[in-house]
């Protein structure tokens, strides 16, 4: 479990706190989507979980962040890394190897994954991310989106209890983006992995996350099950969040007094909503 209590953090280089008075509990096996505008504190929230804050980015740290009872301030990042796998926003900064296969092996060998398990995990990670054909490719020859998949594959091969991902689909096409989320769902459901993902594609995120956390200027302003948060579509639009267009349609139908049910998540539910209106 991850517990943040009255957590405030200001980077040494920052003019104001990146996060303010954060009280947040993320339970084992949860699938949490973090949304918000640029500069809202989304990446900092992920850094607080994997210990990058305050160990690599120094600053004023108030309150506490506990990961499975370990205080992140007192725990070395390499110790936290065993528990928490991270996929960073800038994949180029994450890659350490020349070849895709080596990138996946690097983590597993360093974490002491038993030798007879390595091949199975490597194959599964490449398959789940849809890149078995890239196994022997040079990382430098890959497209931005392909690198993003390699970064995700390298982390899932480690099977950490918690995975934090900072915009893992930023450079991916729609089908590949969905593939990444299906893979996260698989890990969440099969191994009970806790997933915490920062994502700008709110429509996609809503189809997979159990809960949403909306940050604005360093504070949590909405938090709860996806449908509950989507009820505040007006507020989200006001802030500048990309509300899925089927949710905007739902709002419009409610406003025109044509529909009184819940906000749809995805096209299938939107179709059901329209069928209901027209029945």
């Amino acid at each position: 479990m991850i517990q943040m209590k009255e957590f405030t953090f200001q980077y040494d280089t920052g003019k104001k706190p990146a996060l303010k008075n954060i009280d947040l509990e993320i339970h084992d096996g949860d699938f949490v989507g973090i949304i918000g505008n640029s500069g809202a504190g989304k990446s900092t929230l992920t850094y607080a979980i994997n210990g990058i804050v305050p160990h690599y980015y120094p600053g004023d740290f108030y309150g506490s962040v506990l990961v499975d009872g370990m205080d992140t301030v007192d725990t070395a990042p390499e110790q936290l890394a065993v528990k928490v796998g991270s996929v960073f926003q800038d994949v180029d900064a994450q890659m350490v190897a020349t070849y895709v296969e080596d990138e996946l092996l690097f983590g597993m060998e360093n974490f002491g994954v038993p030798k007879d398990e390595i091949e199975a995990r490597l194959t599964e990670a490449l398959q789940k991310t849809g890149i078995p054909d890239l196994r022997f490719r040079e990382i430098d020859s890959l497209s931005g989106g392909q690198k993003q998949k390699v970064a995700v594959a390298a982390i899932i091969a480690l099977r950490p209890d918690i995975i934090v991902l900072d915009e893992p689909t930023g450079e991916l096409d729609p089908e590949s983006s969905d593939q990444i989320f299906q893979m996260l769902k698989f890990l969440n459901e099969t191994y009970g992995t806790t997933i915490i993902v920062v994502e700008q594609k709110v429509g996609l995120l809503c189809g997979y996350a159990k809960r949403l956390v909306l940050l604005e200027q360093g504070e949590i302003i909405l938090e709860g099950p996806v449908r509950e948060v989507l009820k505040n579509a007006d507020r989200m639009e006001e802030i500048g969040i990309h509300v899925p267009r089927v949710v905007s349609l739902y709002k419009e139908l409610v406003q025109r007094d044509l529909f009184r049910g819940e906000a749809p998540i995805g096209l299938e539910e939107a179709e059901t909503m329209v069928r209901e209106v027209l029945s």
Partner: protein
Amino acid sequence: MIRFEKVSFSYMEEGSTLQDLSFTIEKGSITALVGANGAGKTTLAKLIRGLIHPTAGRILFEEEDISKCKASTLAARMGYLFQNPDRQICKNTVGEELDFTLERTVQDPIERQRLKDDVLNALQLDPADEPFLLSRGERQKVALASALVHRPQLLILDEPTTGLDYKECTQIMEYVQALNRQGVTVVMVCHDMEIVLDYADHVIVMHSGKITADGKTRQILQDPTALTSSALLPPQIIGLAARLMADGYSGFEGICTVDAMATQIEAARKAVTA
């Protein structure tokens, strides 16, 4: 403005990344290059900018063969936004970053200042900010500003909205659209079909180094085979309209916007209850 004549390109000796492409990009248009990861979109964008040259065929920019144009001429007439802003930004402040482009492309210092102020205001950037202390989204805006500050005739954007939140995304696309209305031709690589629907007037779909569809935005986005064969999904409202039509509901042809969809549902509802 741009014409590809049987263009092929390969990064290695064996195999071809792009195969035998022929198409035209009209002056004054906003053309979206869409397709799955690895389809060849970025390679195509680099070819247009003259950063790499075809292994076969030729590319004409205003009827001139790009491979014969001077690099400085192309730099003055084209702006290019790279996929990763960190590969593009090279100066210590936002202001210096813009000066870097302007000093090489615009001679008149007064005009330089005017262009710089204009882009700083439009994208709400502070010239004193240090780019590498900004968020990814802000850095993307800095890179974009430096690509377009000199008002090139052709602006090539490789995933301009990656790393941006929706508000920033709308802000920069509206600015790009405003420049387009002033005559700047835009080519953008984009994965977000909602952005393509809202801003592009022309779409080129790519798959495995080939062009699989080329046409007006609405026509392409409403053609399910053009998209799904290239790992793309239609914008939600178009997707919903297609599902409703498949269910046998009529009147949903050509609907692309939330407002039009709500109005059609309201009309259909009235017909049901009448």
